């Protein structure tokens, strides 16, 4: 039985009408035309459909629409676009971390969640975090390099932000130039 739901995706509220058990993935793809999350297994096994919900990487194929509630959903599209890339997207592009690219969405989403929790992950942390994101093309080497690069870029971005805040507080805008 269809019901009307309001969900928060990529910073906007969307009204959708569907059965409460409908997987969030279908809502994102079919109702919101968001192609970032991909259908991979429907069983929560492969990670291709990952999205961020409240900064955690979760599998949209197993999330019933009813369970979403007022939580904030972020998809790959919500991270950034080609004119304004998220540091993790930038790192994956720099490292050419895709062959077919079907798993790329899950890899990027998982990396964003990891770096949020642990901005300086070690090699073992990265491998463990991505353990349940499957890639069949064998792009693992490039993906690992991308995650390491993303950690660096994110930290740099964070430092810039902190630096900027400090600069503003001190009223010394001139330091901004040097930092960048």
């Amino acid at each position: 039985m269809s019901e009307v739901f309001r969900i928060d995706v990529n910073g906007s509220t969307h009204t959708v009408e569907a059965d409460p058990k409908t997987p969030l993935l279908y809502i994102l793809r079919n109702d919101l035309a968001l192609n970032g999350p991909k259908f991979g297994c429907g069983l929560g096994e492969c990670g291709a459909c990952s999205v961020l919900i409240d900064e955690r990487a979760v599998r949209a194929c197993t999330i019933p629409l009813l369970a979403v509630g007022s939580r904030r959903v972020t998809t790959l599209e919500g991270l950034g676009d080609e004119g304004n890339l998220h540091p993790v997207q930038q790192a994956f592009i720099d490292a050419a971390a895709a062959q077919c690219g079907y798993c790329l969405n899950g890899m990027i989403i998982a990396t964003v969640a990891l770096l949020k929790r642990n901005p300086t992950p070690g090699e073992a942390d990265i491998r463990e975090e991505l353990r349940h994101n499957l890639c069949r093309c064998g792009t693992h080497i490039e993906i690992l390099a991308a995650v390491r690069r993303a950690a660096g870029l994110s930290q740099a971005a964070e430092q810039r932000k902190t630096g900027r805040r400090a600069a503003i507080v001190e009223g010394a805008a001139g330091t901004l130039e040097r930092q960048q």
Partner: protein
Amino acid sequence: MTVDRETSRDAQLSGEELLAVLSPVVNGEEELYLTIGSDGLVTAFNGHVDLGTGIRTSLAQIVAEELCVPFEQVQMVLGATSVAPNQGATIASETIQVTAMPLRLAAATARAFLLEKAARLHGLPVESLVVEDGIIRTATLENWSLTFADLVSGDHVRLAIDPDASLKPVSDYRIVGTSHPRVDIPQKATGRWTYVHDVRVPGMLHGRVVRPPYAGFDHGEHVGTSLISIDEASVADVAGLVAVVAIGDFVGVVATREENAALAAKKLKVLWRAAPERPDLNAPEEALRANPSTPRKLADRGNVDLALAGAATAMDRTYVWPYQMHASIGPSCAVADFREEGLTVWSGTQNPFPMRRDLSILLDMPEDRIVVERLEAAGCYGRNCADDVTADAALLSRAVNAPVRVQLTREQEHAWEPKGAAQVIDVRGGLDIDGGPSAYDFETRYPSNLAPTLPLILTGKIPAAPDTLQMGDRTAIPPYAYGNLRVTVHDMPPIARASWFRGVSAMPNTFAHESYVDELATAAGVDPIEYRLRYLQDPRAIDLVHAVAERANWVPHTKPGTLGGEGDLLYGRGFAYAVYVHGKFPGTAAAWAAWVTDVAVNRRTGEIAVTKVICAQDSGLMINPDGVRHQIHGNIIQSTSRVLKEKVDFSSTAVTSKEWGGYSLITFPDVPEIDVLMIPRPNEPPLGVGESASVPSAAAIANAVFDATGIRFRELPLTPERVLAGLNGGGQAEKPVQRKRSAWWKFGLPIAGGLAAVTGLLTMGSPWRPAISPIERPDANVYSSVTIERGRLVAAAGACNVCHIGTDGLAFAGGRRFDTPFGAVYATNITPDVENGIGGWSYPAFERAMRQGVSRDGHHLYPAHPYTSFAGAEDADLQALYAYMTTQAPVSEKPTETKLKFPFGIRALMAGWNAMFLKTAPFQYNKAEDAEWNRGAYLVETLGHCSACHTQRNVLGAEKGGKAFLSGGFADGWEAPALNASAKSPVSWTEQAFYDYLRSGHARDHGSAAGPMADVISALAPLPDADIRAMAAYLAKGSATVAEKSATAEMVVAASVAAQADAARLAPKGARIFEGACASCHTGTNALSSLALNSNLHSDSPDNLLQAILNGVEAPAILAQTTGRETPEIMSMPGFRDTLDEQQIADLAAYLRARFAPGKASWDGIGDVLRRVGSVVH
């Protein structure tokens, strides 16, 4: 809306200002290869497609180089049948080697024309002009230049490809041979790329297919003829259902929304003939030898028979390769738009032109009315279901006269994709007296063909008779100069549905060649590389072998074990070399590749870690060196996965590996360190690099394992159990599948006891009860709001609506079915409807039903209605409940009536039962306990009727008394665990834990409520905190009386971590299923408690575990919406009923028990419990 349609060839050529290069006219057709527009932009066309290898980028580099334009100025169009040249299927690493050639000539033809035109316009000799970055200049006139745009403008020119066009010398290359970023990745990394899965056409509907039960087999007389009937009524209630379509064995559904199409496909009842038995393909050697075949001799030199007879050391070996799958990460998908005038499909096909031909046959439509738009899909390394689903979509679109998108399920892709075939290779040979190879008699069996597009077979459009092809011969000729050589391929039809998969037959053939030569070297007492070099004659191969040996610092050795080990680990290093030969025999060589690999073998667990791979490859000229490097990485990782882990499992009739637990892939922690050495050969022609580095993998790893352990493994995959069996000197028998039939209810009534009991009942009690006259429906207004509110809370405490909920969700409407040992009992309608509910019941009638189990009309109720608990309830509570029920909306529906079989159908017998088991005394408060405890006891024992589920029942279905009270029972297909000191939970239940669980559905040290208990907790939500605390206090005291448990959650979890290795050894398949199917949520950091804390893993009975596996568990967040719990898990556990088979679930359960309840006895008879649990209807 995302609609991708390539501009057709005619439209491409319609521009007034255009330079086009086409093929010469053949049969009235000319094919378009290249256009340059008046803006100078170049569009190039190729019939091959990008399978994720980056060929789009490499081809653009080739065109840009030959035309001398900036790379950014070139756009590639791949595979669309409306415009691209027909260059056949994208196979065999041929794109760069073969199909790029006409493109290169087309670019050279265009460049020559533009130079000549510029020269003519300005009266200059062509030789004086140079072209660079799309601009033509002279060396002398510095202010003079012409762009390609200038030269194309104002004219429409068509050129035929000049086969003799002068090609740029490699020494002038600036774009080809330098690494170039892939053009597609920025869009893919931001979700802006359109894969075939992302195509949306206006008015598009969603389809799903339902495949026959012979999953993964495509020939035989039953194929296409197994459908008996379809029950369309089974999906009549699916919202937005448009059609159910059946043609032969092709069955599909179409709906307006995707989830509804998926639901309809799941619910559709289809009756099929039983699938026929197949040969055992799990150990494929026997089946392959028995498969009819035709020998084809590829080589016969020297005198093999004589040499074999005279060998000093005879060595006859057999190598066995398992069935494997392409395992694309995205299941195939397609969109089709069928109209009178023609068909357009959006497809991820690897073969757009053969696909068009198949659609033409399928739909009886001429090819020129069919357009195949080719879009990228998930990576595919051979033939997956992309073509099948395109044909599926076409059939469904034709049936509903609208565009239809069809998405295959993970299970369908796994089960039906044409597999990489198993292979059996025999090598007979040995050493001569000098330690040289005496003979090499090689025979290989490869049961595969091209796997016809499935709907053609399912609909009977083409016969389900298998073709036999000649594809077993790839790299069948060994690279070594064996003097006495015989090579025979046994061409054979497929057994399971099979087709080409990366490396095709070359990978297994090389496993044999390169293992065998290693065996010869060891037997001869010579270093394996040195031994190979004695017989290797190809100079590029010799260079390559030297290069990789040097890069790896290879230390010559003549026997295994030289690298030693530490602890349980044994270290080894192996080598293998191959050139991948593809195409019709004798075929064409692609890139050469050689591996040195390091392994660590754990002799206690049997696990192999491939720790490092050093791979050298000679690819000739490399168009995009970074692209080549990525292909080598991909091949190494994928082939390592295939060698260590991958094997398709079969039942006797079908493929059973239907998800990533049943068919596991390598994951990040197991990815080896990789060192790639790319041999620079810029002056040699470019070679295919898509497959070569996979080919030496198996032998290199097996040789390294031999070096570590001294044991030869000649059958793949090298799973821990195979390695352990090898290390222990024997084979490991597969456990036979338990197929015992058994009683369907564990606590079923023994016949003799049952009869005696019935006799007893007949003699006891007076069965007759008078009817109580019906009344007018009471007016709810006569009750005070305080009374009604009290009644609402009583209904909450009693969770009345959990059992009495209507089948369509209406409150108290009844109809839910409960399977009891005595038969199915249906809950009644308790809404105030006079006809069907209790609207005509007076309070005395209501009270009698509640306390004595007698309906208003005098008939006895069964004790599925827990009147034995309610009997002791406070009058005020029952009165308030009566009042509350009168306020409910009447539902005029009659639920299914309970009709038990004889003798239980005789309701009057319940009188005797009541005489034996019903105590009518009011609830006895205990003065020794405080008010909170007493309130909790009252709620638990009467209104809450917890004992109805949580207490075992005797053979007559009555709750047992004494110690059995709240010691656990079974209800509704679930085990209701003990709530007292007999609880199996590894951590004791505290008052706080009971409170958390009853209030929020989750207790940190125990887990989340599921199944019927989740409904109960939701029902308890209106109760005030004080009542929940009271129940918790009462229950905690009861559970603590004899509790001796002192384990903390940390200790329990630590024990399960420690048990992991032993559990994997006990149930290796179960371990893999857990890792692939469960661990993504049940390990690591998330909102779920560890399974080690879950009572169900520690129980004597696996019922609840199996319930969860079969039917899934709803997201705790849904329950949390009623209970207010914060940060619950929002993902639901999917049900695996249609995904895992009985053996897989048994393996998984064995692993879960051993890992998460170490020390507990293993569960017996999982199959029986599975049937019991599986038969419960919800």
